[in-house]
């Protein structure tokens, strides 16, 4: 049952009711039961996969903590041990904990690879084989993709790596870990939480807090507004443009990219608002995934504001470990001697960035589109990293240009333009079509297409476009206000009547102008097939 269904709303209402009536010690177990019920409503067969992941991570984490505890107690019993004996023992423990970590990661990422990427992998192998022989490896057709597998696999992988680094001890209660893995609002489109950030509020008992609930409900409604009124309306036009590249070429590709940017933003941030809102209903804090990404002035900043938890995950668990890994260090040293300091400085960053962006691209989907999308991002960031001296000289010449609003707007527009181009990879079915479509913007702009008839032919009426445009304006206005503080606080200060009017109006807009029900398919969150 997707977010946009009455059953989900009823499900949450019942869960909240029970949550605050049950005795405090049954609160988090109730959430676990709710999460299992939610998961079962999709497909019972998925249970096996999430259970295997949870148990394997729990067991490996406990073993690692146990080994470290044994090491510490051994050191306490033998204080007289001198330095290198201690070092030897530490190395032994490290090797064992490393073995457990690798086993667990291989298992979980193996499942993810088998279910999500195997066909893509075989397809490429076949492509290579077909060069010199006709034989083909058969692909698997009946592959199950459990709900939110990419999310919970990455969440648990982050957890066990942290335990291995010794940042905190493993959770002893397997049910608590199960709840952390399968907390139902985060199953559909993340965020990819960190155990120490979510665990305190997830397992703690909460008493009814009127303000928190009110704010949570407001946020949920705002999420539904973005998702149902705007995203699900625009998706009809985006699909129409994207599925017919021959007919909608030239400037229509750019229009499609802009519509897709608005639709993707409303869909994803709407979904996250609902997730965070529902979590807050239970008093659970879930990390933010977006911080007004379209206001960022450069790509690096964009990736610190869009899908934050995925970015930080890859930074902490791919980028840093890779940079500090021994082989890379050796390579840096080798380059330092051979090619001098300049190259040596860049080697770890390039290697780690490429791996990071390859991973992010592949995470989004098992096709070359996404991998090239990732590489595109990587290229832009590395290039802008290289150009920093140029930027510094430019800023030196114009000292306080940063402050000027026209410069800032230019940066924002430039960043969004680049991201829109990169997002074309998401839209078109394969890489050649994407490049052809992108090329056609400049080669054959065909501005003639920019007529009312074309737009009406996309399956949306004039009224639809006006509603979507008005909605986007409203979101823009709210984002402007948000820069100075929480909008909900401001509304709360204005008293009950005003607040009731605002949210009653929002409720009416969602019910009337929502693109849901027969004729609209609104349950396919873009990010829910991950």
């Amino acid at each position, binding site marked *: 049952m997707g977010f946009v269904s009455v059953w989900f709303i009823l499900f949450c209402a019942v869960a909240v009711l029970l949550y605050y009536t049950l005795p405090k010690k049954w609160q988090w177990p109730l959430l676990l039961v709710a999460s299992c019920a939610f998961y079962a409503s999709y497909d019972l067969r998925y249970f096996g996969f999430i259970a295997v992941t949870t148990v394997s991570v729990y067991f490996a984490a406990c073993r690692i903590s146990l080994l470290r505890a044994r090491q510490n107690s051994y050191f306490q019993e033998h204080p007289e041990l001198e330095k290198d004996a201690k070092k030897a023992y530490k190395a032994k423990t490290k090797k064992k904990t490393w073995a457990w970590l690798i086993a667990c990661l291989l298992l979980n990422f193996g499942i993810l690879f088998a279910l999500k990427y195997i066909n893509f992998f075989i397809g490429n192998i076949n492509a290579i084989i077909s060069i010199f022989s006709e034989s083909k490896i058969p692909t698997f057709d009946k592959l199950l993709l459990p709900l939110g597998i990419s999310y919970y696999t990455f969440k648990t992988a982050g957890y066990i790596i942290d335990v291995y680094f010794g940042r905190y001890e493993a959770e002893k209660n397997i049910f608590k870990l199960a709840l952390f893995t399968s907390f139902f609002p985060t199953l559909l489109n993340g965020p990819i939480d960190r155990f120490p950030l979510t665990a305190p509020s997830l397992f703690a008992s909460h008493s009814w807090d009127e303000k928190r609930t009110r704010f949570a409900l407001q946020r949920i409604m705002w999420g539904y507004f973005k998702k149902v009124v705007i995203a699900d309306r625009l998706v009809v036009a985006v699909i129409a443009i994207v599925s017919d590249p021959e007919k909608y070429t030239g400037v229509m590709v750019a229009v499609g990219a802009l519509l897709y940017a608005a639709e993707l933003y409303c869909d994803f941030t709407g979904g996250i608002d609902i997730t965070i809102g529902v979590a807050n209903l239970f008093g659970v804090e879930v990390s933010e995934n977006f911080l007004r990404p379209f206001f960022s002035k450069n790509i690096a900043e964009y990736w610190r504001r869009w899908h934050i938890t995925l970015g930080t995950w890859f930074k902490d668990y791919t980028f840093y470990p890779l940079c500090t890994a021994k082989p890379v260090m050796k390579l840096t040293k080798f380059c330092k001697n051979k090619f001098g300091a300049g190259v040596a400085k860049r080697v770890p960053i390039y290697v780690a960035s490429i791996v990071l962006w390859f991973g992010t691209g592949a995470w989004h989907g098992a096709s070359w589109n996404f991998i090239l999308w990732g590489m595109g991002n990587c290229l832009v960031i590395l290039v802008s990293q290289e150009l920093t001296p140029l930027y510094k000289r430019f800023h030196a010449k114009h000292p306080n240009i940063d402050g000027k609003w026209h410069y800032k707007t230019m940066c924002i527009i430039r960043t969004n333009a680049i991201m829109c181009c990169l997002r074309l990879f998401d839209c078109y079915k394969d890489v050649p079509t994407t490049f052809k479509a992108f090329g056609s913007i400049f080669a054959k702009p065909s501005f003639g297409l920019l007529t009312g008839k074309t737009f*009406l032919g996309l399956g*949306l*009426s004039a009224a639809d476009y006006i509603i979507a445009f008005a909605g986007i*304006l409203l979101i823009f206005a709210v984002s402007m206000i948000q820069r100075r503080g929480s909008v909900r606080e401001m509304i709360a200060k204005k008293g009950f009547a005003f607040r009731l009017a605002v949210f009653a109006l929002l409720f009416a807009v969602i019910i009337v102008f929502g693109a849901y029900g027969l*004729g609209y398919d609104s349950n396919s969150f873009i990010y829910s097939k991950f």
Partner: protein
Amino acid sequence: MKKTLLILLLVLAVCLMAACNSGTGETSGTESEAASTPSGSEHKATGYLFEYNGVSFGVGSATADIIEKLGEQTEKPYTSNSCAFNGKDTVYYFASFEVSDNDETGDLVIYSIYLKDDTVATKEGAYVGMTPDEVKAIYGEPSESSDGGFSYVKEGMKLNFFLKDGVVSAISYYVNK
């Protein structure tokens, strides 16, 4: 704060514009909100075609294009409309066959051609009065068969051969829903 209030006012203005754009105007008929199939796209017949009077047409052809060319109609066309809505379903009578169309897809499109006697034949040469084996010799194994007859499914339409006392008593090209 002033600037954002300005934007909020703009949003309200746009909303009003949307509402009155097509709101209070009197609109009859429940045409669906999303634009219907772009008009003017010519309808192409699919599957087995039927030829008469030098005109080749079939299930899916637009009535307007072919109905005059088929020559003289033996009777006035009979139109029956669906219960509540103004959907139309018309039958045109010719000497040895009948053509029916409806406006489900917005324009008048043929959905059935019914051959009554052996003075006409299908393009492939089958006609009323043949035995099932003779038909199968032309078209091969049917996709569906029952005691009332057998049919060949092709690209969204069916070519039906009806049987009475072991002989083909009627042939019809019918849309395959």
